[in-house]
């Protein structure tokens, strides 16, 4: 095969969201547990009222929307910072679609594999 020649520039991997080959297992799993989540209209109220979101780059709407599109939650230039969620529940109080967003946050933590092993249950 050809050696990896360097011509002084790199081909860019596409930024396209490829829905054809998306692995939406996490999304389907979450939609079962928190069924109201499918009614989200991405209005942004949750991200707006989120105390953690103001000081840390944690945007809850973008996070669970990325999951809906089966995108990688944890990327180096967009770390999800989900662990900075305070679970204070303000987002749940303001959600116009009545989605239990606090529970969604907990479920995302549990279902996104490497978080769950942080501290095993009793």
């Amino acid at each position: 095969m050809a050696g990896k020649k360097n011509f002084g520039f790199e081909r860019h991997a596409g930024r396209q969201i490829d829905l054809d080959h998306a692995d939406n297992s996490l999304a389907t799993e979450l939609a079962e547990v928190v069924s109201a989540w499918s009614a989200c209209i991405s209005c942004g109220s949750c991200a707006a009222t989120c105390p953690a979101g103001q000081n840390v780059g944690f945007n809850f709407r973008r996070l669970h929307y990325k999951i809906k599109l089966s995108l990688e939650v944890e990327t180096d230039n967009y770390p999800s910072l989900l662990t900075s969620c305070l679970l204070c529940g303000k987002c749940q109080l303001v959600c116009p679609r009545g989605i239990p967003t606090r529970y969604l946050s907990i479920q995302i933590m549990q279902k996104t594999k490497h978080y769950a092993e942080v501290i095993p249950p009793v």
Partner: protein
Amino acid sequence: MQKLFHPFDPFVLLFTIGFSFVGIFFLYKLIRWIERLSDKDTELLNNSIFTVKTWQALKEVIWESLLHRKIFGINKRLGYMHMSLAFGWFMLILIGNVESIYYSGRFFKPIYISVFWRFFDPGPSFPQAVYQPGFAFWMDFFLLLVLSGLALAIIKRFRSVWLGLKQTTRQRPVDRLALTALWLIFPIRLLAESATCGANGTGSFLTGTLGHLMSSALSPEPSFLSLEPFVLPLWWAYSSVLLLFFVTLPFTRYAHIPSEAVLIFLRKYGIRVSRESPGYTDLSTYSCSSCGVCIDPCQLSDALPGRQVQSNYFVKSIRHHEHTDIQWDCMQCSRCEKVCPVGLELMTMRQLSRTDMAMGSKSTIIGHPGRNGQAHRILYFAGCMTHLTPSIIRSMSQIFDQAGSSWQFYDPDGLACCGRPLKLAGQSEGANRIKEQLQADFLASGAELLVTSCPICYRMFNEDYILPGMKVLHHTQYILELIEWKRIRVDQNKLTAAYHEPCELGRGSGVISEPRELMSKLYQKDTTPDIEGLCCGGSLGAPGLDLVTRRAVARGALGELTSGKPDVLITACPLCKKTFGPVSEIPVMDFAEAVARSLTGGSVLPETSKSLKTRHKQQVAV
């Protein structure tokens, strides 16, 4: 008398096997429990064993394990049922032992001898024994006591309302098996002893009379021999049903009989449920008698009909290491913890079973400890939820200014959280991180008094925060102080009101009287129902509840709270206010708002009560 000296009959083997099995099992368990205690708890145990605490624990064992004093508080008949079964059986064993020692003269002898003593020694002749208050008499007396309790237990199984329980636990198959075994023990014992007495013309008022009746029923002329063929089989039956009970005991709710005693001792020594002492948590799960007393107070029983989420089912699920999600279905309102006869720390056990994922560990909390470095006497911490009920914040600032107090608003831009929501979700590590940050901020502010509007924060500051030289008050307590010190004056208005006591303020933090005193100062007529505080349904404890269930809980609570037809519902928590708001037919106000209105001479009810009412009508349909 040859039988007396080395009495034996093969049927006793069944009992002995069963009894020794239970003995070994719980010995092993005891070692495991103590082994899996944290160093701190083990130290506590060692230092307290030979102290007065052990005597106090022993006293509590008698009051609780035997007499079940706490259950009497719930319902007299229920208390009597448990007392009769526990205390009655204990006395049967005690007196049986004394009787066997007295007659056999041997203190150390196989345990079965005292249990089956009546078989070996038919006792005094009948009917003389009826009038002599001897052993036979007392054995019959306590047997009767136990049987009476048994009758109540059977009634409870079919009509639990009569014993004050709307619902009772739906037992598992193995529990039902042990239950039937327990229910068979005493009737068979009665028959066995009566048969022996009938065959030998002995027995006291119960066993003798029944024995006599049985023998006369079997043969027209009074001959004692007619009962002979029935004696041995009945004792075999008695021993085998005991075996069945003992074999199933460790795997069923009756494991609480030995476990609760151990729990009482360890608890008296100061050991509490914690992540570091899994042994104590395991002991707690064994101590749950699954009596079902915690089902009725749980508001999820109505909101989630048919779902087995209450504490007894939850404790059982941990004990049997079943993977379920019901640890999330608990509003942490601690209504069950308040009535649990065994006094288990049900709330903490739920929190611990929620996997700790170190949430909240990356967030930084921004507050303002001191305005331009100048220390203020009072630091006001509104709480994150209160920023969604701005009228509370506005009212509190009016009250602070009216009272002329030197105060500083710690979290004006709502970027602070006390950490308790994390703790309720089992995220102790994240909660601690937040606590460290805020604690340092509060102490740095130099304030003497920390006032908060949110009971959830109040409980966290009280229980978990260490704030030397700083007093923590909920704003209801603070307002009452202001009134008592004549710093502000409120006049009573003619409206009737009802007070909803937030779980975290009343049961959670013990702030019971101050809000009620404030009510009397504010409202002429107080129609608060005299019941245990109800949860509003908005609780952070149960994240998994969907909006429909929360509204069902809220409506259930409102039904009770507005039974006295109040004009306005007063509460002391922003989350309760936000939860009741869309569902309540009448306006929902916080104490701060009510006080601020009367201070500034504003209208007593929020102006939008009319529009609020119509708006509520539509939303109630959800």
